[in-house]
């Protein structure tokens, strides 16, 4: 427990450091003094202050929230289907969101409707619709069957990916193609204060809920039967987990596009450090996910200014080697 507490504190400190560094990186060169001035005596007419507060800060927050949401959802998914390879996209969330976003790119030349920027809402609708179908096809008599859900999710994902490819093939606009490809690789460039609330609220609620249900998660990792005998209402908790995963992932993906790797790897990372049953596991996992994407976004902006390399590429490039190293060194086992 003490180790876990220490890890959480470390992650918080590192995140703060990441934010501070992140506020410095951008097209307009900035000193640390300017950052402090922008934070504590903000002058809206100064373009540097404006960029720090209205562009860089929301971008960092969105990166953090997305990483935390995906890691959180990955943690729950792995417990839900009791499979080490599960991630939040397994239920077709990512491909549903991709299809939704692609449709908006291809259907609406303006991308806005009554001042509302459409792709996130289409992505959200797509991810929810697909999750719903997977749940219906993956359950029998109201009982979720993890293995069946898994298979339906994988199959449906292929179909939806094919539909996105079809849309891309039929498109005659190179720019539309670029929009879809760019979105599907993930990024935080469009972050702004007005949209941060959605992922922030859903993630916080999810974290609070499962902080209190943490024991159930640990027990569920031992297998459904064992959990039943230990007095866990497996059916109920599975439904709660499923709803939480789809809501939290849906909102994270809607605003930043599907970012791979985080939901799959980060939960293993924290389990490798803390073991599988720690009470602070989920909190540490979310923090690690958030920190990880903040760092990846920073790297992407450093190596590829000004637009930044799509963050999904960076996560895989930098995350996978580290992950493999950790697995080999710790000799860690799932559940």
């Amino acid at each position, binding site marked *: 427990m003490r180790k876990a507490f220490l890890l959480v504190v470390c992650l918080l400190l590192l995140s703060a450091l990441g934010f501070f560094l992140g506020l410095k990186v951008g*097209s307009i060169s900035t000193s640390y003094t300017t950052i402090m001035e922008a934070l504590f005596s903000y002058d809206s007419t100064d373009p540097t202050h404006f960029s720090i507060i209205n*562009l860089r800060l929301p971008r960092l927050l969105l990166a953090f929230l997305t990483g935390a949401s995906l890691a959180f959802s990955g943690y729950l998914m792995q417990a839900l289907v009791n499979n080490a390879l599960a991630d939040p996209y397994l239920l077709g969330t990512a491909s549903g969101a991709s299809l939704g976003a692609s449709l908006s790119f291809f259907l609406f030349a303006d*991308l806005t409707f009554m001042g509302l920027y459409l792709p996130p809402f289409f992505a959200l609708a797509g991810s929810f619709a697909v999750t719903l179908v997977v749940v219906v096809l993956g359950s029998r008599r109201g009982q979720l069957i993890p293995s069946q859900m898994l298979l339906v999710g994988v199959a449906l994902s292929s179909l939806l990916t094919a539909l996105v490819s079809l849309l891309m093939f039929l498109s005659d606009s190179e*720019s539309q193609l670029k929009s879809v490809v760019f979105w599907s690789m993930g*990024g935080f460039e469009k972050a702004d204060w007005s949209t941060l609330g959605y992922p922030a609220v859903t993630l916080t609620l999810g974290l609070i809920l499962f902080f209190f249900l943490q024991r159930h998660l640990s027990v569920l990792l031992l297998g459904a039967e064992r959990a039943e005998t230990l007095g866990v209402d497996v059916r109920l908790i599975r439904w709660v987990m499923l709803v939480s995963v789809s809501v939290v992932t849906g909102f994270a993906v809607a605003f930043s596009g599907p970012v791979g790797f985080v939901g799959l790897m980060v939960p293993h990372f924290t389990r490798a450090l803390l073991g599988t049953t720690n009470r602070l596991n989920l909190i540490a996992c979310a923090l690690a996910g958030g920190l990880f994407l903040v760092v990846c976004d920073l790297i992407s902006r450093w190596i590829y200014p*000004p*637009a930044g390399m799509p963050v999904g590429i960076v996560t895989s490039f930098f995350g996978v080697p580290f992950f493999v190293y950790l697995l080999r060194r710790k000799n860690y086992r799932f559940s």
Partner: protein
Amino acid sequence: MHTVTDDLGRKVTLPKQPRRVLALAPSMTEMLFAVADTASIVGRTQNCDYPAAALTKPVVNNYPMDYERLLSLKPDVVFATDGIISLEVAAQVQKLGIPIYFQAYDSVTDILRGIRTLGQLLQREEKANAVADSLQRIINQLATDTARAARPTVLAITWKDPIYVYGRNTLFTDKLRYAGGKNALTEIFAQPYPALTREYILKMDPEVIIGGSFEQMEKTFFSLYPELRRIKAYKQKRIYEVTDDLMSRPSPRVVEGIAELKAVLR
């Protein structure tokens, strides 16, 4: 038959006097109609819509490339531009026994040179030189009174999400020079049409934006990126729409494009 080197440095062997030709890009089709004997043009792509006479020619899909249709039109030589037709497609066309000749243009002068080259390849030098000379005269006229004027910085947006713009290493920068402006981008990026962040645009603070009328851009661009309302172009309402095809096609109509740019910059 003779062998020539095209703008990409490829060796192309083609008949000394081609009788059946077609182009695989809208701009190149415009070039052909300016230089070639109209009867010798045997096709066009689905996007070639200028001049009106082009619309009467049979269509060959160029994306994806319809090789069978191309073959059935029996061209002696096919013209292509860099960026529209890939080298992979070109190799396939060559394999069918049809020579394919590429042109590439980085500047307005390159387009005029391209016209003259076409004239040589099609044995219509007189016509081509007349076209190029008259275009050159118009360009000189357009550029005379812009030489000493203050040059506003111009950002031309090609796509809103993500924000793609005309980079420095595009024909656009050269056209602006004649029209009396300058590209707001000072850096050269690897891509000719780079994606930019909002912060980068804030930093550039362009004086003119091209990409749509003020009302259109207000609805589709600035509502999406309200932060960008702080740039000079927005505050001074210097946001303009120009004809898409004139902007994007490196064709003899490049002079009309320059004239249009000049009109909005004035």
